[in-house]
């Protein structure tokens, strides 16, 4: 599990108010990916951004249903933006 994936799952568990193990089991049962509510996606995204200390990681154009409503797409977005952020700094 990558650093971003670990943080993302921790934050999603907090936002869903469930234990991390319970969430991981649900992800496994669902075949490795789960759907997110769009507001949940926004909340998890900003919480990961804070945890990574990368203000502004999520851009205005990133806020589409496609990016925010599955765990895998949100993770791909954050990984991609983090790589860009690290290159710029």
């Amino acid at each position: 599990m990558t650093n971003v994936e670990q943080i993302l799952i921790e934050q999603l568990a907090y936002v869903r108010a469930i234990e991390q193990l319970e969430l991981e089991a649900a992800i496994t049962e669902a075949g490795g990916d789960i759907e997110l509510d769009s507001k949940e996606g926004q909340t998890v995204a900003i919480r990961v951004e804070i945890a990574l200390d990368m203000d502004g990681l999520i851009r205005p154009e990133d806020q589409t249903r496609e990016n925010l409503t599955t765990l895998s797409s949100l993770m791909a977005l954050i990984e991609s933006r983090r790589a860009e952020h690290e290159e710029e700094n």
Partner: protein
Amino acid sequence: MADLIQAGNASEAWLAAMELMLSRDGKAVNLNVVFPADADGHEALNGVVDGFIAEHDVRYQDGNLLLVETVANTIFPQALYHPHLGDQAASRLYENYALSMRVHRRRKNDKETYFNRLLAYPVGTGAMGESEVKLEKDGTWNQLAYYVERLRKQRETLHRSSSYELGISHPMDAELRVQAPFKDKRMGSFPCLSHISLTLVDDRVHMSAVYRNQTFITRALGNYLGLTRLLEFIATETGAAPGELQVLATHADAETGLGVVAIRDLVKRGRSLIDPGTAQEAAHVQ
């Protein structure tokens, strides 16, 4: 002339309102819709409306489709509320929603939501005097937290009082404001939902919401769903039961501009989901 629609749930209310408007010119003034908040609607109807929205590519300014759940989320973010947290449930909701708004506000347009107006109403600074109301540093006020707490305390006080035991009804109320004078100055722009009134009577909390303009294809069903969820939240947090939801559209629009034939078909398909007998009859007439 005003109209009153009383229905068994949100889905039936929406359909009846649409049928009423389509029997006229597609619009209404002072359209008053009432239904019990604790009655389950017909989820399949949301799918039918979403299908129409997708087919006609009706989108927010940010490019996202105006789906029923998306509209409902602007009034109450159901996914962020977890009643099993007990005393912490509301504060967790407020904390996470405030964080989500930091991302939401980065959009070029659509920087505000109805639920945010309930949690961060722009009062300004220095206006509250010696009031018990406490503003945030940015001059906003969490009016929802204030009224939930006030209603809960009032309800608990009445539970202890002899008047409550004698069964005397003590209506208590709260006013949640969405429209902000001086800030919301653009015609035809946010917010269409102006005001929400809450009334607690005999351990049931009732809600009345006023829209200055309500579009029925792109908003109303999601509005009903979001308001129902907001009322359920308020009832849970005050220890009461959800009562009746009344939604007054001072101007209602069936949005026939999207295609009157397609909209009539949408409503007919919705009716067939809720009341198959009626649909069969309609099909037979055709």
